[in-house]
């Protein structure tokens, strides 16, 4: 039950809730552009990947790239969207990096609609739509602080003009900067897993705009939102949202109002500033693109795309978590799946090795030298886990062997031998424990009586007796069970 009476207007007395919706643009990793045959390639000499069509020369016409449609549908399927017959519209506005001075985009009838994305903690974020559109060129302004207003001159590279994009619009379901980052992180993993995008934020193939508003906790209506642009990393996304939330709350608590506007995030100053107000917002004069016909992919194609999707990160986390007996959003599980290490867990399970052990090694030692993973022999890894699991190697020894395995490859048995790690079976350890107890009856009496600090004393004896080859964790477990057995 919420106590609404206790909440009154005035500084510091209102509890605020943050509401965020994200618009994520992702470039599709097609070989060619959306409406012509030019290469879709990042980092080439400016204005080398252009032709009459993507330069919008008079008389040219767009022809839709089939692979781009396939990739867009993969994204839709991966986000549990309804994939539907759609049409393209023209979004009209003048800008030098837009060759036709209109952008071919989808408007009220997008290819993908009404889906969801599940965060690692299980929360579902609604996806309103994921539609196709073409990218613009890239303008570099010289002078005037790098923005068009006040620039001395500008240069335009049209290599990017016409590159296929999918814009994924979330519902306003996100409630914090942290959640927004988790959403983008998860979305990026889904895009990469689907094969539709390389998800590289630093190369601009993933770009995020945030719609941010605040409202009193419990309020049924949304506050006035601002759209924040120009965030180039997950870190700046989080910073920009935190800044914007603080700005809006301080405005409201000071008795002011939030104006609906588009704001520019400045990475250097750590602030957002007005780009254009609602009054200055462009009228894009959308209308159906007459140069293209409606896009109506046959059901068989949609089914082929949906059925052909690889397992998505959430499913993979669930599988690893279940096998290892861990929570799906536990750090180890999230790390293993993020780094695509879960096939190694599968291999371990298939070989009858403990999945929890596999996840621990993968999330720690293997993750730490992820660059070596392509060279890691699966059988060798599984065999090493088996040795550790059977107590033939201590945890410390197994870690050492694994590091060698990652660095140089080889056979884990041979590595263990060369390192002088004599296999110490469970029986041998049990005998060493019993010997330590028998040789120190007085101390054992006190330990049984509750003096836990004597654990160290016994472990020291066992370590000495086994020449350091004992699994000390296992040894203390044995000590405890002997004590409980009386």
């Amino acid at each position, binding site marked *: 039950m919420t106590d609404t009476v206790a909440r009154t207007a005035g500084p510091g007395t209102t509890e605020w809730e943050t509401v965020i919706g994200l618009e994520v643009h992702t470039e599709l990793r097609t070989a060619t552009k959306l409406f012509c045959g030019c290469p879709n390639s990042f980092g080439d000499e400016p204005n080398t990947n252009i032709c009459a069509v993507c330069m919008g020369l008079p*008389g040219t*016409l767009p022809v839709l790239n089939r692979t781009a449609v396939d990739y867009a549908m993969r994204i839709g399927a991966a986000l549990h969207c309804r994939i539907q017959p759609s049409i393209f519209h023209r979004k009209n506005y003048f800008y030098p990096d837009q060759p036709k001075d209109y952008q071919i985009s989808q408007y009220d009838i997008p290819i993908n609609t009404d889906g969801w994305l599940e965060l690692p903690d299980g929360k579902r974020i609604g996806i309103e739509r994921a539609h196709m559109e073409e990218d613009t060129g890239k303008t570099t302004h010289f002078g005037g602080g790098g923005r068009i207003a006040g620039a001395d001159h500008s240069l335009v590279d049209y290599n990017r003009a016409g590159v296929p994009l999918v814009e994924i619009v979330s519902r306003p379901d996100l409630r914090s900067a942290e959640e927004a980052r988790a959403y983008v992180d998860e979305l990026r993993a889904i895009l990469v897993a689907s094969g539709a995008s390389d998800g590289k934020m630093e190369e601009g193939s993933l770009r995020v705009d945030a719609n941010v508003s605040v409202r009193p906790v419990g309020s049924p209506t949304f506050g006035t939102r601002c759209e924040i642009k120009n965030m180039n990393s997950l870190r700046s996304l989080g910073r920009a949202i935190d800044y914007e939330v603080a700005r809006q709350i301080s405005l409201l608590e000071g008795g002011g109002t939030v104006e609906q506007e588009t704001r520019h995030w400045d990475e250097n100053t750590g602030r957002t500033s007005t780009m254009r107000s609602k009054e200055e917002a462009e009228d894009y004069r959308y209308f159906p693109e007459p*140069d293209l016909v409606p896009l109506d992919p046959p059901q068989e194609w949609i089914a082929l795309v949906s059925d052909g999707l690889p397992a998505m990160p959430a499913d993979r986390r669930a599988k690893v978590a279940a096998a290892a007996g861990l929570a799906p959003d536990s750090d180890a599980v999230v790390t293993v799946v993020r780094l695509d290490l879960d096939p190694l867990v599968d291999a371990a399970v298939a070989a009858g090795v403990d999945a929890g052990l596999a996840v621990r090694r993968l999330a720690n030692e293997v993750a730490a030298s992820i660059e070596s993973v392509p060279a890691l022999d699966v059988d060798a890894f599984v065999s090493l886990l088996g040795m550790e699991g059977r107590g033939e190697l201590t945890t410390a020894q197994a870690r050492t062997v694994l590091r060698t395995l990652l660095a140089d490859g080889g056979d884990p048995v041979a590595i263990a031998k060369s390192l002088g790690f004599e296999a110490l079976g469970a029986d041998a350890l049990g005998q060493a424990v019993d010997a330590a107890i028998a040789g120190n009856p007085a101390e054992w009496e006190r330990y049984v009586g509750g003096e836990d600090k004597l654990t160290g004393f016994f472990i020291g004896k066992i370590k000495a007796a086994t020449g350091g080859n004992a699994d000390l964790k296992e040894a203390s477990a044995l000590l405890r069970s002997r004590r409980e057995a009386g």
Partner: protein
Amino acid sequence: MNGHESALGVAAAVRRGDRSAAEVLEEHLARIGEAEGEIHAFNTLTEDAARAAAAAVDATVAEGRDPGPLAGVPVAVKDNLCTRGIRTTASSRILEGWVPPYDATVVSRLAAAGAVMVGKTNLDEFAMGSSTENSAFGPTRNPVDVTRVPGGSSGGSAAAVAAGFAPLALGSDTGGSIRQPAAFCGVVGVKPTYGAVSRYGLIAFASSLDQIGPFAHTVADAAALYDVIAGHDALDSTSLSEAPPEASARLEAGVDGLRVGVVSELVSADGMAPEIAERARRAADALSAAGAKVDEVSVPAATYGLSAYYLIAPAEASSNLARYDGVRYGLRVPGEDVTEMYVRTRTEGFGAEVKRRIMLGTYALSAGYYDAYYGKAQQVRTLIIRDFERAYESFDVLIAPTTPGTAFKIGDIVDPLTMYLNDVCTIPSNLAGHPAMSVPYGTASDGLPIGVQVLAPALGESVMFQVAAALESTAGSL
């Protein structure tokens, strides 16, 4: 025929080796040399390229290889069709100095058929107009009476054929821009089914309405040109994938048993000259005498065509013409900043009619007005298609006048709305996407040519040309 030789006759002679393409070309260039100064049909003459093309045709014939169905036939091409290496202006200052790096699909197909392009013809700027007076390079005169307009927007192409500069020409028809000038100049003009001819390389005016089509002296010549340019093109997504109808297939078949409807609303359209309405009825009577079953038919929504057209066409144009911004090609008038450059370039680069339509179209698409204007116009379009489809349940083709009047004097019509009324009978076919053609059908009391339209359902070109050929054969006895 107006005493001019037919394209098919020229092609047959060249193919047989009776005449050389070079000789045919020189005869036409000589005619151009005599009269072009007065007519001004062309923005650009391409004599050198034409001589090279003619020589290539002659070489092909000499080698015993097939020189193509239009071997050695001179063709005039509207200057809104892109030609590789040859300046293409759309009769606008804003495209000053622009030379396309590619050929329009129809231009490639012409060349492949052995036709010889002689030049790029004048038009109303960006095909916006009905008189060719809206050209940045001055008006074209009607060869029938040089004090009069040739019609438009493809006035240069119509005049080129009428003056004997070329037996064939290509134009584009967005609301009547082929058929109206054909009627004014006394030649045949065809607007094909939307999607039958590739628009790739046609400088867009209104993308959902634009179609490229032929001008010729005879129905058979027009059919031959249609058959060369029609057919699927992977570069135009709106190009139809099915094989195009063969226009030349049934030219001799007569009209016995065909059902012909006379469109009441178009015969009695606003401003229709009584003698032109009467001439359309006489055309129907002639077809009836030739064995067709003729009746009046109502296409009610056609009366709203003009209003719908002047929302849809400017709306699309406002977007299509946005790219002429001074950034990448064509005219650039420098300014203090990019916005000022845009404004100056477009202010100086576009003529009054183009600016008028950009403003109309921008307004029609604006937030808050879209539903009332553009949306409503698209609904009217649906109604027009529905009404035509109903008519075609009972009729194979329809007959209507092409224009409400004959060619008017240069400078006579200054009011834009009066000018727009010229297209009242031609616009419905563009909105429906159906084919229609104008056939010369005698002269009016003022001695000027009258055109009669044959309209057909989508991809009904075979029957349309069949009826047009029959009509043509009765025109002599008027």
